[in-house]
C-alpha cells in the first residue's frame, strides 16, 4: 500500500499565499469603499458650490432686471443685499453717465454681447472675484467673497478633515479646506468645473491616504486567522501521519510474523520431507525387491539394508520434530504469580473496547471481583483472555446486532478458579468443536488456526485447563480453569 502524503510545506506555504491574497483583497475593498465615499462627497461639494454660483448669477439677473434706482441712499441695494447674503461684499452700479475702470468695462462689453454675467476679475489668493452684467439703463457688478459663499451648514466634509478642497482659476487657486497635506500613499482626486458659465472655476477635491489609515486591525486579524488555520492543519496532518505510520508498523509486524511463520513452515516441510522421501523410497524399494520373483529369489541383504535405512530416516524425521518443538516451545516454568482475574479481564476489555462498541455488543460481567486470585503468568493469562474475547467478538459478527451478548463469569471451584466466556453467536459446528484445539484447524477465512491451540498450551503450562462446549441455548462457551493462588480458606463453621 502506498500512502501519498502532502509535503510538510503545503500548509505554511498555502497559508502565506492565502494571507497575502486575502490582505490584498481587503486593501482593495477598503480602497474601493473609500473611493466611493470620496466620490460622493466630491459630487456634493461640486453641487453645493454650483448652486452658490447659480445664486450669484440670479442676483445679478434680478438687479439688472429690476434696475433699482440710485435715488435714495437708504434704498441702495448693496447694503440690503450684503445684509442678506454675507458673500456679497459690494454691489456696483453704473448708470449711463458713469464709466467703470478698464477691467469692469471690458467685462461689461462682453456681458452685453453674451447676454449673461461675466467674470471681471478674480483675486484667488484672497478668494474674491467680481461678476458683471450689462443692462439698461444701468449695469451691475457684484464683488463676491467666496469664503462666505461656502454653505458650511450643508457641507458633507468636516472643515478640518483630511480632505483638501480648492477652487482653481487658471494657475491660481483658493483653498477652501487645507486638508491633511500630502502624505505618502494613495491620493484620491476629483476635478470638475462649476456648473456656471459666468464663474469658470474648477472644484478640486483631493484626499491623501496615509499608511496609517489602512485597515491594519482587519489585516492583522485575517493573518492571525490564516496562521492559526495553517498551524492547525499542519498539526492535523502530522497527527494523521503518525497514526498512519503506527498502523503501518502494526501491519508490517503482522506481515513479518506471517512471513516468518511461512518461512518456518517451508523450512519444516523441507526438513521433514527429506527423511520422508528417503524412507518412502527405501521401504518401497524393499517391497519391490521382495515381490521380485527372480530365479534365485529376493535379494534379502539389500531388502534388509533398505529397511534399516527406512527406520533410520523415520528416527531422523522424529528428531526434526523434536528439535522444532524445543525451538518454539515457551519456557516450561511460566513465571506464575497471584493475579486478580478482574484486572486481566478489565484490561482486555479496555483493549478491545473499540471493537465491542463498534459491534454494539452487550457485555455482562459476573463474580469477577469476588473470585479468588489465581496463580498465573500475567502475559499468558492476558493472551488467553484476549484470544477468548476476540474469538467471541468474531463469532458475534455472525448474528444481528441486537442479539450480540458477551458474558464473562468467574467463580471459585475447589482449588481452582473458573473463568467462563460465553457468547450468543452461532456456537461451534459439531466437527469444529472436536478439533477446536487442534493446531492449524480454523473455520475462519484467513485464520491461522493457532489461537485456541496456543491458549490451551498456555493454560496447560500454568497448570490449568481450557475447555470448549456449546451452550444449551446456543453460542460458544469457553472455560479456563486456573489454580487458585491462596490456599483454600477453611470452610465456615
Amino acid at each position, binding site marked *: 500500500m502506498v500512502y501519498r502524503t502532502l509535503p510538510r510545506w503545503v500548509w505554511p506555504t498555502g497559508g502565506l499565499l492565502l494571507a497575502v491574497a486575502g490582505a490584498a483583497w481587503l486593501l482593495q475593498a477598503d480602497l474601493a469603499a473609500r473611493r466611493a465615499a470620496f466620490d460622493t462627497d466630491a459630487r456634493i461639494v461640486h453641487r453645493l458650490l454650483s448652486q452658490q454660483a447659480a445664486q450669484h448669477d440670479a442676483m445679478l439677473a434680478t438687479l439688472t432686471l429690476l434696475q433699482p434706482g440710485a435715488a435714495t441712499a437708504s434704498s441702495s441695494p448693496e447694503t440690503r443685499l450684503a445684509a442678506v447674503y454675507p458673500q456679497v461684499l459690494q454691489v456696483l452700479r453704473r448708470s449711463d453717465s458713469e464709466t467703470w475702470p478698464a477691467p469692469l468695462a471690458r467685462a461689461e462689453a462682453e456681458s452685453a454681447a453674451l447676454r449673461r454675467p461675466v467674470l471681471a476679475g478674480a483675486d484667488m489668493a484672497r478668494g474674491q472675484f467680481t461678476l458683471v452684467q450689462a443692462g439698461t439703463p444701468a449695469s451691475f457688478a457684484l464683488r463676491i467673497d467666496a469664503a462666505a459663499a461656502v454653505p458650511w451648514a450643508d457641507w458633507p466634509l468636516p472643515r478640518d478633515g483630511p480632505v483638501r478642497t480648492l477652487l482653481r482659476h487658471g494657475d491660481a487657486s483658493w483653498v477652501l479646506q487645507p486638508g491633511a497635506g500630502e502624505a505618502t500613499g494613495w491620493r484620491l482626486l476629483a476635478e470638475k468645473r462649476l456648473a456656471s458659465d459666468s464663474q469658470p472655476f474648477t472644484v478640486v477635491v483631493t484626499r491623501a491616504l496615509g499608511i496609517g489609515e489602512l485597515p491594519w486591525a482587519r489585516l492583522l486579524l485575517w493573518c492571525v486567522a490564516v496562521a492559526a488555520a495553517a498551524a492547525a492543519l499542519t498539526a492535523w496532518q502530522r497527527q494523521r501521519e503518525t497514526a498512519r505510520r503506527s498502523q503501518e508498523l502494526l501491519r508490517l509486524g503482522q506481515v513479518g510474523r506471517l512471513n516468518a511463520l511461512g518461512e518456518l513452515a517451508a523450512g519444516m516441510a523441507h526438513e521433514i520431507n*527429506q527423511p520422508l522421501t528417503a*524412507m518412502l*523410497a527405501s521401504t518401497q*524399494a524393499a517391497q519391490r525387491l521382495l515381490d521380485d520373483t527372480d530365479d534365485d529369489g529376493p535379494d534379502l541383504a539389500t531388502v534388509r539394508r*533398505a529397511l534399516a535405512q*527406512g527406520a533410520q*530416516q523415520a528416527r531422523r524425521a522424529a528428531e526434526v520434530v523434536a528439535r522444532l518443538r524445543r525451538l518454539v516451545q515457551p519456557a516450561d516454568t511460566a513465571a506464575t504469580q497471584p493475579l486478580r482475574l478482574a484486572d486481566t479481564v478489565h484490561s482486555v476489555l479496555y483493549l478491545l473496547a473499540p471493537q465491542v462498541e463498534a459491534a454494539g455488543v452487550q457485555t455482562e460481567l459476573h463474580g469477577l471481583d469476588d473470585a479468588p486470585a489465581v496463580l498465573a503468568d500475567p502475559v499468558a493469562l492476558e493472551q488467553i483472555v484476549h484470544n477468548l474475547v476476540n474469538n467471541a467478538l468474531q463469532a458475534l459478527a455472525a448474528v444481528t446486532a441486537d442479539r450480540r451478548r458477551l458474558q464473562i463469569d468467574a467463580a471459585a471451584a475447589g482449588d481452582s478458579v473458573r473463568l467462563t466466556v460465553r457468547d450468543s453467536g452461532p456456537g461451534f459446528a459439531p466437527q469444529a468443536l472436536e478439533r477446536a484445539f487442534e493446531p492449524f484447524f480454523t473455520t475462519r477465512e484467513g485464520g491461522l488456526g493457532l489461537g485456541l491451540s496456543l491458549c490451551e498450551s498456555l493454560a496447560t503450562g500454568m497448570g490449568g485447563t481450557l475447555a470448549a462446549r456449546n451452550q444449551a441455548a446456543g453460542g460458544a462457551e469457553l472455560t479456563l480453569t486456573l489454580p487458585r493462588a491462596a490456599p483454600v480458606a477453611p470452610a465456615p463453621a
Partner: protein
Amino acid sequence: MNQTPLIHLVDDDPAVRDGLALLIGTVGLRVMPWAHPQAFLDGFDRDAIGAIVLDVRMPGLGGLQVLEALRAQGVDQPVVMLTGHGTVAMCRRAFKGGAAEFLEKPVDDQQLLDALQAAVRQHVRSRQHHRADREARERYAQLSPREREVLGLIVGGLTNKEIGRALALSPRTVESHRAHLFGKLGAPTLAQLILRYAQLVEDDAAPDA
C-alpha cells in the same frame, strides 16, 4: 544403445540419494548418484541414453539453475524435477525450462518409476530419430544431381515414362538412374524410399523454388 539406460540422480541429501537409487535400481535402470550439482554438470556422460533426476532445493546451485544450464548446453536427456514444497511459479519455471516431469517429495515409487521409464523411452526414440535422420542425410548426399532430379520426380509420383519425357531421357536411362539411387539410398521398396526421403527432397527443393 547397447547399454542399459543410465539415470543421473542429483540430490545433496545422502539418505534420499541412497533410497531413490535403490528404488530406481529395482526396475533394472542403472543409477549414477551425484551429491554436487556442479560435479554432475562437469562430469556426466552426455552421450549415454537415460534421464536426469534433479532436486530443486540444493545448496549452491539449485535444481532449476542446473536445468537451465543443461538446456543451454543442448543436453537432450529428459529431466525429472523433485521438490519438497513446489509452488505454481516454480512448476511453471521448470516446465518452461524443458523439464519432462515435476514431482513432489515424498514421491510415490510408481509415479517416479513411470516418469523415469517414460523419459527413457522418449530419449531412446529421439536418439533413434536423430540417427535415422543423420543416416538418410548422408546417403542423400551421395546422389548425383541427375539422380536427385529423378528422385524428386519419383517422390512426385511420376512413372518412368513420364520422368523420361520430363527430363528428355530415354526410359532405359531413367531406369538405370532409378536402380542406382535405390541402391545408394538403401531403400528396399518404393514405399520405404518415399517414407524416408520425401522430406529431404522437399527440403532440398525448397531453396530453389
